[in-house]
Protein backbone atom coordinates (compact mmCIF):
# COMPACT_ATOMS: atom_id res chain seq x y z
CA UNK A 1 0.00 0.00 0.00
CA UNK A 2 2.99 2.28 -0.53
CA UNK A 3 1.15 4.10 -3.31
CA UNK A 4 -1.72 4.95 -0.94
CA UNK A 5 0.74 6.35 1.62
CA UNK A 6 2.51 8.28 -1.12
CA UNK A 7 -0.71 9.88 -2.41
CA UNK A 8 -1.88 10.56 1.17
CA UNK A 9 1.29 12.54 1.91
CA UNK A 10 0.75 14.67 -1.20
CA UNK A 11 -2.91 15.31 -0.37
CA UNK A 12 -2.04 16.08 3.26
CA UNK A 13 0.43 18.79 2.21
CA UNK A 14 -2.12 20.33 -0.16
CA UNK A 15 -5.10 20.47 2.21
CA UNK A 16 -3.13 20.87 5.44
CA UNK A 17 -4.52 17.93 7.38
CA UNK A 18 -2.55 15.02 8.80
CA UNK A 19 -1.32 12.23 6.49
CA UNK A 20 -3.22 9.68 8.61
CA UNK A 21 -6.48 11.57 7.95
CA UNK A 22 -5.84 11.82 4.19
CA UNK A 23 -4.85 8.15 4.17
CA UNK A 24 -8.19 7.44 5.83
CA UNK A 25 -9.97 9.58 3.22
CA UNK A 26 -8.33 7.73 0.33
CA UNK A 27 -9.02 4.32 1.89
CA UNK A 28 -12.66 5.22 2.54
CA UNK A 29 -12.94 6.41 -1.08
CA UNK A 30 -11.56 3.10 -2.34
CA UNK A 31 -14.14 1.27 -0.22
CA UNK A 32 -16.89 3.58 -1.56
CA UNK A 33 -15.79 2.75 -5.09
CA UNK A 34 -14.95 -0.95 -4.77
CA UNK A 35 -16.98 -2.22 -1.85
CA UNK A 36 -16.58 -2.38 1.93
CA UNK A 37 -14.59 -5.63 1.98
CA UNK A 38 -12.03 -4.60 -0.62
CA UNK A 39 -8.47 -5.72 0.20
CA UNK A 40 -6.14 -2.72 -0.23
CA UNK A 41 -3.23 -5.04 -1.07
CA UNK A 42 -5.08 -6.02 -4.25
CA UNK A 43 -5.54 -2.46 -5.49
CA UNK A 44 -4.65 -1.85 -9.16
CA UNK A 45 -3.83 1.29 -11.09
CA UNK A 46 -7.35 1.53 -12.54
CA UNK A 47 -8.99 0.85 -9.14
CA UNK A 48 -7.09 3.81 -7.70
CA UNK A 49 -7.73 6.02 -10.71
CA UNK A 50 -11.49 5.48 -10.59
CA UNK A 51 -11.58 5.86 -6.79
CA UNK A 52 -9.79 9.24 -7.01
CA UNK A 53 -11.87 10.46 -9.96
CA UNK A 54 -15.19 9.52 -8.39
CA UNK A 55 -15.41 8.65 -4.70
CA UNK A 56 -12.56 10.84 -3.40
CA UNK A 57 -13.76 13.79 -5.46
CA UNK A 58 -17.26 13.38 -4.03
CA UNK A 59 -15.91 13.28 -0.49
CA UNK A 60 -13.80 16.41 -1.03
CA UNK A 61 -16.86 18.19 -2.49
CA UNK A 62 -18.93 17.17 0.54
CA UNK A 63 -16.18 18.48 2.83
CA UNK A 64 -16.24 21.77 0.87
CA UNK A 65 -12.52 21.97 0.09
CA UNK A 66 -11.31 24.56 -2.44
CA UNK A 67 -9.72 23.82 -5.84
CA UNK A 68 -10.97 20.24 -5.93
CA UNK A 69 -10.40 19.86 -9.68
CA UNK A 70 -6.73 20.84 -9.25
CA UNK A 71 -6.33 18.45 -6.30
CA UNK A 72 -7.81 15.54 -8.28
CA UNK A 73 -5.67 16.38 -11.32
CA UNK A 74 -2.55 16.46 -9.15
CA UNK A 75 -3.35 13.10 -7.51
CA UNK A 76 -4.05 11.49 -10.89
CA UNK A 77 -0.76 12.82 -12.25
CA UNK A 78 1.15 11.55 -9.22
CA UNK A 79 -0.57 8.17 -9.54
CA UNK A 80 0.45 7.94 -13.19
CA UNK A 81 4.05 8.95 -12.47
CA UNK A 82 4.43 6.56 -9.51
CA UNK A 83 2.28 3.62 -10.65
CA UNK A 84 5.21 1.19 -10.41
CA UNK A 85 4.93 1.35 -6.59
CA UNK A 86 1.74 -0.75 -6.94
CA UNK A 87 3.82 -3.65 -8.29
CA UNK A 88 7.15 -3.03 -6.59
CA UNK A 89 5.84 -3.21 -3.01
CA UNK A 90 4.20 -6.59 -3.51
CA UNK A 91 5.37 -9.73 -1.64
Amino acid sequence: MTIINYLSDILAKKINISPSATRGLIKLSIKDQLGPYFDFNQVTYLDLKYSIENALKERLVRLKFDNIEDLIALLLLELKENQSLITMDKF
Partner: protein
Amino acid sequence: MALNPIPDMTLLVPTLTIQLLIGIMLIYKTINSKIRNLLYLALFNLTVGISFLLSRLMVYIESELWAPIFQVLTLTSQLLIVTFIQKTFYKQKKSPYKIVVPLLIGNFFFAFIMQFFTRTLTQLTAIALFIYAISYSIDHAISGYWFAYISLKQYSKYRNMNIEPWIKIRYLLSGIVALAYSNLGMPLFLLVIGRFNPIYLRFFYDLSFLFRAILASSFSLGSLIAWTMPKSFKKFFNKRHFPIEDRDVTEEEIMKEIDHLYGSK
Protein backbone atom coordinates in the same frame (compact mmCIF):
# COMPACT_ATOMS: atom_id res chain seq x y z
CA MET B 1 37.93 -28.49 -31.69
CA ALA B 2 35.99 -30.46 -29.10
CA LEU B 3 34.81 -28.19 -26.32
CA ASN B 4 34.51 -29.39 -22.77
CA PRO B 5 30.89 -29.10 -21.59
CA ILE B 6 31.65 -29.39 -17.86
CA PRO B 7 32.30 -25.70 -16.97
CA ASP B 8 29.20 -24.66 -18.87
CA MET B 9 27.08 -27.16 -16.99
CA THR B 10 28.33 -25.87 -13.64
CA LEU B 11 27.01 -22.44 -14.61
CA LEU B 12 23.91 -23.73 -16.34
CA VAL B 13 22.43 -25.71 -13.46
CA PRO B 14 22.26 -22.85 -10.90
CA THR B 15 21.25 -20.12 -13.37
CA LEU B 16 18.60 -22.31 -15.01
CA THR B 17 17.27 -23.40 -11.59
CA ILE B 18 17.17 -19.79 -10.35
CA GLN B 19 15.37 -18.52 -13.46
CA LEU B 20 12.78 -21.31 -13.31
CA LEU B 21 12.33 -20.74 -9.56
CA ILE B 22 11.73 -17.00 -10.04
CA GLY B 23 9.30 -17.73 -12.90
CA ILE B 24 7.28 -20.29 -10.92
CA MET B 25 7.17 -18.13 -7.76
CA LEU B 26 5.99 -15.10 -9.73
CA ILE B 27 3.28 -17.16 -11.45
CA TYR B 28 2.12 -18.30 -8.00
CA LYS B 29 2.08 -14.68 -6.76
CA THR B 30 0.21 -13.53 -9.87
CA ILE B 31 -2.50 -16.14 -9.33
CA ASN B 32 -2.88 -14.99 -5.71
CA SER B 33 -3.11 -11.29 -6.56
CA LYS B 34 -4.76 -8.99 -9.05
CA ILE B 35 -1.37 -7.73 -10.24
CA ARG B 36 -1.53 -9.33 -13.69
CA ASN B 37 1.53 -7.54 -15.08
CA LEU B 38 3.69 -9.83 -12.91
CA LEU B 39 2.75 -12.68 -15.24
CA TYR B 40 4.86 -11.07 -18.00
CA LEU B 41 7.85 -10.93 -15.65
CA ALA B 42 7.24 -14.56 -14.62
CA LEU B 43 7.10 -15.79 -18.22
CA PHE B 44 10.14 -13.65 -19.07
CA ASN B 45 12.18 -15.40 -16.37
CA LEU B 46 11.00 -18.81 -17.57
CA THR B 47 11.92 -18.09 -21.20
CA VAL B 48 15.32 -16.71 -20.16
CA GLY B 49 15.92 -19.92 -18.17
CA ILE B 50 15.01 -22.07 -21.17
CA SER B 51 17.14 -19.94 -23.50
CA PHE B 52 20.13 -20.37 -21.14
CA LEU B 53 19.64 -24.12 -21.53
CA LEU B 54 19.32 -23.94 -25.31
CA SER B 55 22.31 -21.65 -25.68
CA ARG B 56 24.47 -24.37 -24.15
CA LEU B 57 22.86 -27.26 -25.99
CA MET B 58 23.47 -25.39 -29.27
CA VAL B 59 27.21 -25.60 -28.68
CA TYR B 60 27.33 -29.36 -28.20
CA ILE B 61 24.48 -30.76 -30.30
CA GLU B 62 24.67 -29.76 -33.94
CA SER B 63 21.28 -29.00 -35.44
CA GLU B 64 19.90 -26.54 -37.97
CA LEU B 65 16.86 -26.12 -35.75
CA TRP B 66 18.59 -24.61 -32.70
CA ALA B 67 19.20 -21.18 -34.19
CA PRO B 68 15.58 -20.45 -35.22
CA ILE B 69 14.18 -21.92 -31.98
CA PHE B 70 16.63 -19.88 -29.90
CA GLN B 71 15.88 -16.72 -31.87
CA VAL B 72 12.11 -17.12 -31.45
CA LEU B 73 12.62 -17.71 -27.72
CA THR B 74 14.86 -14.63 -27.44
CA LEU B 75 12.27 -12.48 -29.24
CA THR B 76 9.52 -13.88 -26.98
CA SER B 77 11.48 -13.04 -23.82
CA GLN B 78 12.19 -9.51 -25.13
CA LEU B 79 8.51 -8.91 -25.90
CA LEU B 80 7.55 -10.20 -22.45
CA ILE B 81 9.94 -7.93 -20.57
CA VAL B 82 9.06 -4.78 -22.56
CA THR B 83 5.35 -5.52 -22.00
CA PHE B 84 6.08 -5.86 -18.26
CA ILE B 85 7.88 -2.48 -18.30
CA GLN B 86 4.98 -0.90 -20.20
CA LYS B 87 2.31 -2.27 -17.87
CA THR B 88 4.24 -1.54 -14.67
CA PHE B 89 5.66 1.93 -15.34
CA TYR B 90 3.74 3.41 -18.29
CA LYS B 91 0.04 2.53 -18.05
CA GLN B 92 -1.95 5.35 -19.73
CA LYS B 93 1.32 7.21 -20.12
CA LYS B 94 3.46 8.13 -23.14
CA SER B 95 6.22 5.54 -23.62
CA PRO B 96 8.61 4.19 -26.26
CA TYR B 97 6.74 0.83 -26.28
CA LYS B 98 5.19 1.39 -29.72
CA ILE B 99 8.65 2.02 -31.17
CA VAL B 100 10.46 -0.71 -29.20
CA VAL B 101 8.14 -3.59 -30.21
CA PRO B 102 8.44 -3.05 -34.01
CA LEU B 103 12.21 -2.57 -33.53
CA LEU B 104 12.53 -5.92 -31.76
CA ILE B 105 10.37 -7.73 -34.32
CA GLY B 106 12.15 -6.01 -37.24
CA ASN B 107 15.53 -6.91 -35.79
CA PHE B 108 14.39 -10.53 -35.41
CA PHE B 109 13.30 -10.85 -39.05
CA PHE B 110 16.39 -9.03 -40.32
CA ALA B 111 18.72 -11.38 -38.41
CA PHE B 112 16.66 -14.42 -39.36
CA ILE B 113 16.75 -13.67 -43.10
CA MET B 114 20.40 -12.59 -43.10
CA GLN B 115 21.45 -15.70 -41.23
CA PHE B 116 19.48 -17.93 -43.58
CA PHE B 117 21.15 -16.45 -46.67
CA THR B 118 24.59 -16.43 -45.11
CA ARG B 119 24.37 -20.05 -44.02
CA THR B 120 22.77 -21.46 -47.16
CA LEU B 121 24.52 -19.36 -49.80
CA THR B 122 28.00 -18.85 -48.42
CA GLN B 123 28.35 -21.52 -45.69
CA LEU B 124 30.19 -18.89 -43.64
CA THR B 125 29.13 -19.82 -40.13
CA ALA B 126 31.40 -17.16 -38.60
CA ILE B 127 29.55 -14.43 -40.51
CA ALA B 128 26.20 -15.98 -39.58
CA LEU B 129 27.34 -15.97 -35.94
CA PHE B 130 28.47 -12.35 -36.28
CA ILE B 131 25.04 -11.31 -37.61
CA TYR B 132 23.40 -13.27 -34.83
CA ALA B 133 25.66 -11.59 -32.21
CA ILE B 134 24.68 -8.13 -33.49
CA SER B 135 20.96 -8.97 -33.48
CA TYR B 136 21.11 -10.62 -30.03
CA SER B 137 23.06 -7.68 -28.56
CA ILE B 138 20.68 -5.07 -30.01
CA ASP B 139 17.64 -6.97 -28.65
CA HIS B 140 19.10 -7.24 -25.16
CA ALA B 141 20.38 -3.65 -25.17
CA ILE B 142 16.98 -2.22 -26.14
CA SER B 143 14.95 -3.98 -23.44
CA GLY B 144 17.70 -4.13 -20.80
CA TYR B 145 18.71 -0.46 -20.96
CA TRP B 146 15.07 0.62 -20.97
CA PHE B 147 14.38 -1.43 -17.83
CA ALA B 148 17.61 -0.21 -16.21
CA TYR B 149 16.84 3.42 -17.05
CA ILE B 150 13.32 3.44 -15.61
CA SER B 151 14.21 1.39 -12.50
CA LEU B 152 17.21 3.54 -11.61
CA LYS B 153 15.28 6.74 -12.38
CA GLN B 154 12.55 5.71 -9.92
CA TYR B 155 15.18 4.59 -7.39
CA SER B 156 16.89 7.99 -7.44
CA LYS B 157 13.49 9.68 -7.07
CA TYR B 158 12.51 7.58 -4.01
CA ARG B 159 15.98 7.36 -2.44
CA ASN B 160 15.39 10.14 0.09
CA MET B 161 11.66 9.61 0.52
CA ASN B 162 9.88 7.90 3.40
CA ILE B 163 9.40 4.63 1.51
CA GLU B 164 10.39 1.24 2.93
CA PRO B 165 14.08 0.70 2.07
CA TRP B 166 13.54 -2.85 0.76
CA ILE B 167 11.30 -1.41 -1.97
CA LYS B 168 14.03 1.06 -2.91
CA ILE B 169 16.52 -1.86 -2.99
CA ARG B 170 14.16 -3.71 -5.36
CA TYR B 171 14.28 -0.74 -7.77
CA LEU B 172 18.07 -0.51 -7.45
CA LEU B 173 18.61 -4.26 -7.96
CA SER B 174 16.19 -4.34 -10.90
CA GLY B 175 18.24 -1.58 -12.52
CA ILE B 176 21.56 -3.31 -11.90
CA VAL B 177 20.41 -6.73 -13.15
CA ALA B 178 18.86 -5.06 -16.20
CA LEU B 179 22.31 -3.58 -16.96
CA ALA B 180 23.86 -7.07 -16.72
CA TYR B 181 21.09 -8.40 -18.96
CA SER B 182 21.59 -5.66 -21.57
CA ASN B 183 25.20 -6.75 -22.03
CA LEU B 184 24.54 -10.50 -22.32
CA GLY B 185 25.15 -10.34 -26.08
CA MET B 186 28.67 -8.89 -25.81
CA PRO B 187 30.50 -12.19 -25.07
CA LEU B 188 29.15 -13.56 -28.35
CA PHE B 189 31.53 -11.24 -30.21
CA LEU B 190 34.44 -13.07 -28.58
CA LEU B 191 33.08 -16.32 -30.06
CA VAL B 192 32.95 -14.59 -33.45
CA ILE B 193 36.61 -13.58 -33.10
CA GLY B 194 37.39 -17.18 -32.16
CA ARG B 195 35.60 -18.50 -35.25
CA PHE B 196 37.68 -16.20 -37.47
CA ASN B 197 40.89 -17.33 -35.69
CA PRO B 198 40.47 -21.10 -35.24
CA ILE B 199 43.91 -21.43 -33.55
CA TYR B 200 42.66 -19.27 -30.65
CA LEU B 201 39.14 -20.68 -30.63
CA ARG B 202 39.62 -22.30 -27.23
CA PHE B 203 40.97 -19.08 -25.69
CA PHE B 204 38.13 -16.93 -27.03
CA TYR B 205 35.60 -19.59 -26.13
CA ASP B 206 36.82 -19.59 -22.49
CA LEU B 207 36.93 -15.79 -22.36
CA SER B 208 33.41 -15.58 -23.78
CA PHE B 209 32.25 -18.19 -21.28
CA LEU B 210 33.83 -16.28 -18.38
CA PHE B 211 32.17 -12.97 -19.31
CA ARG B 212 28.83 -14.62 -19.97
CA ALA B 213 29.10 -16.52 -16.68
CA ILE B 214 29.69 -13.28 -14.75
CA LEU B 215 26.82 -11.48 -16.50
CA ALA B 216 24.35 -14.40 -16.37
CA SER B 217 25.07 -15.19 -12.69
CA SER B 218 24.77 -11.50 -11.71
CA PHE B 219 21.49 -11.29 -13.61
CA SER B 220 20.05 -14.48 -12.08
CA LEU B 221 21.20 -13.88 -8.51
CA GLY B 222 20.17 -10.22 -8.58
CA SER B 223 16.75 -11.12 -10.00
CA LEU B 224 16.33 -13.79 -7.34
CA ILE B 225 17.02 -11.34 -4.51
CA ALA B 226 14.95 -8.55 -6.11
CA TRP B 227 11.84 -10.59 -6.89
CA THR B 228 11.75 -13.28 -4.22
CA MET B 229 13.21 -11.27 -1.35
CA PRO B 230 12.93 -13.23 1.93
CA LYS B 231 11.41 -11.56 5.00
CA SER B 232 14.78 -11.60 6.78
CA PHE B 233 16.29 -9.49 3.96
CA LYS B 234 13.37 -7.05 4.14
CA LYS B 235 13.83 -6.75 7.92
CA PHE B 236 17.56 -6.17 7.45
CA PHE B 237 17.04 -3.43 4.85
CA ASN B 238 14.26 -1.86 6.96
CA LYS B 239 16.17 -1.89 10.25
CA ARG B 240 16.59 1.93 10.34
CA HIS B 241 13.17 2.63 8.90
CA PHE B 242 10.33 3.87 11.07
CA PRO B 243 7.08 2.70 9.51
CA ILE B 244 4.08 5.00 9.14
CA GLU B 245 1.38 4.30 11.70
CA ASP B 246 -1.18 2.40 9.64
CA ARG B 247 -4.22 2.01 11.84
CA ASP B 248 -7.63 2.42 10.22
CA VAL B 249 -8.88 5.96 10.84
CA THR B 250 -12.65 6.19 11.13
CA GLU B 251 -14.78 8.64 9.22
CA GLU B 252 -15.66 10.36 12.51
CA GLU B 253 -11.99 10.88 13.37
CA ILE B 254 -11.31 12.40 9.94
CA MET B 255 -14.32 14.72 10.26
CA LYS B 256 -13.23 15.68 13.76
CA GLU B 257 -9.75 16.63 12.52
CA ILE B 258 -11.13 18.60 9.57
CA ASP B 259 -13.66 20.38 11.80
CA HIS B 260 -10.90 21.17 14.27
CA LEU B 261 -8.63 22.61 11.57
CA TYR B 262 -11.14 24.38 9.37
CA GLY B 263 -14.17 24.75 11.66
CA SER B 264 -17.62 23.79 10.36
CA LYS B 265 -17.61 24.79 6.69
